[in-house]
């Protein structure tokens, strides 16, 4: 299973953090720090796999963002690259030519899309179309501001 998924910029700023194992805030911060240092420190044409503690780390750079995930020893690294790529495709479909700014300003949507694609560190839906449809439908359920204000809370 995937243990975590991080998105960070070339300057090391965190744009998204998804944790699939329970870690306290301090431990999370440490992982983020270590990953950022390790990945950003890699020479440009290295292979995308690293070893960190007992985990395999797979990372891929898309424009100005690094997508970095930590895997169990048993997981398939090459497939993890495909998983990362699929996520980028989903973001791209949703935002239309996604760029880092989209993810900065709409981070909650990025999380929602991720939650339709992965759960508990595993892929939950392998069809791009199905994921896109679910997101669309969920978005429709979200109330507009007027509806929101007029509906009673309970």
């Amino acid at each position, binding site marked *: 299973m995937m243990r975590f998924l991080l998105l960070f910029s070339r300057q090391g700023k965190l744009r998204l953090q998804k944790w699939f194992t329970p870690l306290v805030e301090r431990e999370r911060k440490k992982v983020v720090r270590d990953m950022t240092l390790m990945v950003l420190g890699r020479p440009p044409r290295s292979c995308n796999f690293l070893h960190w503690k007992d985990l395999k780390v797979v990372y891929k750079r898309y424009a100005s963002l690094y997508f970095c995930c930590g895997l169990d020893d048993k997981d*398939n690294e090459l497939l993890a690259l495909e998983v990362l790529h699929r996520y980028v495709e989903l973001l791209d479909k949703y935002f239309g030519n996604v760029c880092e700014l989209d993810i900065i300003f709409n981070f909650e949507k990025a999380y929602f899309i991720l939650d339709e694609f992965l759960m508990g560190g595993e892929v939950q839906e392998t069809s791009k179309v199905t994921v896109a449809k679910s997101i669309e439908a969920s978005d429709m359920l979200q109330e507009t501001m007027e509806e929101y204000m007029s509906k009673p809370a309970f």
Partner: protein
Amino acid sequence: MPAPIRLRELIRTIRTARTQAEEREMIQKECAAIRSSFREEDNTYRCRNVAKLLYMHMLGYPAHFGQLECLKLIASQKFTDKRIGYLGAMLLLDERQDVHLLMTNCIKNDLNHSTQYVQGVALCTLGCMGSAEMCRDLAGEVEKLLKTSNSYLRKKAALCAVHVIRKVPELMEMFLPATKNLLNEKNHGVLHTSVVLLTEMCERSPDMLAHFRKLVPQLVRILKNLIMSGYSPEHDVSGISDPFLQVRILRLLRILGKGDDDSSEAMNDILAQVATNTETSKNVGNAILYETVLTIMDIKSESGLRVLAINILGRFLLNNDKNIRYVALTSLLKTVQTDHNAVQRHRSTIVDCLKDLDVSIKRRAMELSFALVNGNNVRGMMKELLHFLDMCDPEFKADCASGIFLAAEKYAPSKRWHIDTIMKVLTTAGSYVRDDSVPNLIQLITNSVEMHSYTVQRLYKAVLDDISQQPLVQVASWCMGEYGDLLVSGQCEEEEPIHVTEDEVLDVLEGVLVSNLSSPITRGYALTAIMKLSTRFSSVNRIKRVVSIYGSSIDVELQQRAVEYNALFKKYDHMRSALLERMPIMEKTTTNGPTEILHTNGEAEPSVRDSKHPPNIPQPSSQANDLLDLLGGNDVVPVIQTELPTKPASSGGELLDLLGDLSLSGVPAPAAPISVSQPTFLLDGISSQPLFNDVAGAIPPMTAYNKNGLKIDFTFERSNSNPNVSVITIHASNLTEVDMADFVFQAAVPKTFQLQLLSPSSNVVPGLNKGTVTQVIKVLNPQKQQLRMRIKLTYTHKGSSVQDLAEVNNFPTQSWQ
């Protein structure tokens, strides 16, 4: 109160901050506003405020005060609220705080909500961060949803079940009935998550594994359909249909087929098909091939299939893509134990990978290269590995050096080659060599008797150039100390002998002593080496001078050594030559790990002993226990009634415990201390008598005890088989008129000795000296310490029972030396 600013606006504002301080100020201001808004229990804008809080949290600022607000959002009826609330819960709450349990009821309600997207969000949260307690409470709901016909919910419930099982393995049984028809689905999402669920169950429980084996044919069929079916736009990735599902099925097949002939056979065909038909131009195809290879290697596949798998890995090694090469090396490392010959075929490619620029690839290639070294290829491989050692980054050097030493030891074709290899490692990566290699190397060098002059010559030359690498200098110092005479004598068969004078050697050693580069341990080596040369060189005065200077060294270790060596010169000069004699061959013992058999050409090496023989545990009889009690001190060992124990073999690093290993007959050679921890036995127990004793002369008998008419004499003999064993015969005689019946003689010796008591001739000592009771005691005295004994006598005399204790200290020195 004006509406709180919107999320996007906040983000925009914060991004305009030019310094960290400015950003912090903005954030603090906003946090304060949010806090007061929370205090006012504002339902309308809670969602917006929490969203802003989550953004600030991502920037690294504390957001714990929003935790309860997330719970309130989750409880709200509005979908917008729930979405943000659950997101906040996943980011801000963790299972270590009890507050997360407050979510349980909300989740339970949402799992039963009428809208599938609400149910979905609840399932997602539970499946990502549900604690064990939550899982226990909600497992029933999840199980219910696993059986629903709604595929959107079913797939989520399956992954949620996986999480529940990971957290609370005992609940696995509960999900078993729901798994019955999971694989009959057409929906890929459900299929994929079902396979994940089945995999999780099979990995955790052998019973489940056995139960699900019957699914193998169905899995094979699904996989076949995926490969054979035409283009399916929904699941296609670069021409391959649903690679995610394919890989998961292959992984499940691996688990089901492992160790099971029937299952393995059932999947043979499909594996061959996948292996041959998968398109390899893109990463996705290689991902599937990789998983296939792993499966083939793990199950009981037929040999043709295994060869196919290794060949795929071989092709991977030649791939331009670094990732593929890395993955190939990792897999080959896993299979090298089982399919050694097949992997050997790719040896040259693997060795080429040592030159790769990528660090991860280099490391894997190094590990794999070491695994591939064998008797046939050792020369070639070592050349490559030594070259790698020279060129690689420091992070690799220690591991590489250790690996080379190990491999060289195992497969060295000749002693000379072995020494040459060690020399190269020491000179190339001398400072990265591990500390425990130094004693190992020294032991190796002593064993190669005919190479001594060659070795010391080469080490001397190396040290002339460079004394910064501590392990090299330590080994060199030791060798120069031992074999300095060979060095100056100019005899060397293996290579051109160099002309070295005694002074030059002493110059080098003194240089090491004074140099700032030398560590204290190295200095210790150098000082001892200089001392040893006093018996091998003629310039003793110079050595005396050096030694006396260090008698006042600040370093306590050096000072102690120098003082003792000084004492050797002054008071014990007669012993110096014996003490500093050439070291005997040390027997190799392994400290840990499996025993290894040494193969060397032309040399019959003894096979390595097993790790230390544990010293025999004496079986104290109750009498012996009493003796111990009475004697009080814990330096006494009870009588051993068992066989004479074998001496404990010394551990690899401990070169001092040598006397136990000596199997030299005749002259007992004393051992000179060479490494850091010195025993004090050098000066201990030294009497005015010469240390060794050319046997011959009979040892005079002595009277050990004489009281109340009972007299016990000791007579001595040396054991022929073992010079450390003294054989003492006691003769008990009775000068009174009445016999002494039930006579029992017991003895105890200090800890460093071992004692064996044989049966007495009788237990009645007849009166009036009409006869004696004799009993043989064997004493093992490996450390040649002064023999002391306490004896206890019990007998019945004139109707009453008599007990007596005595100490025997007057042993003649020849009896224990």
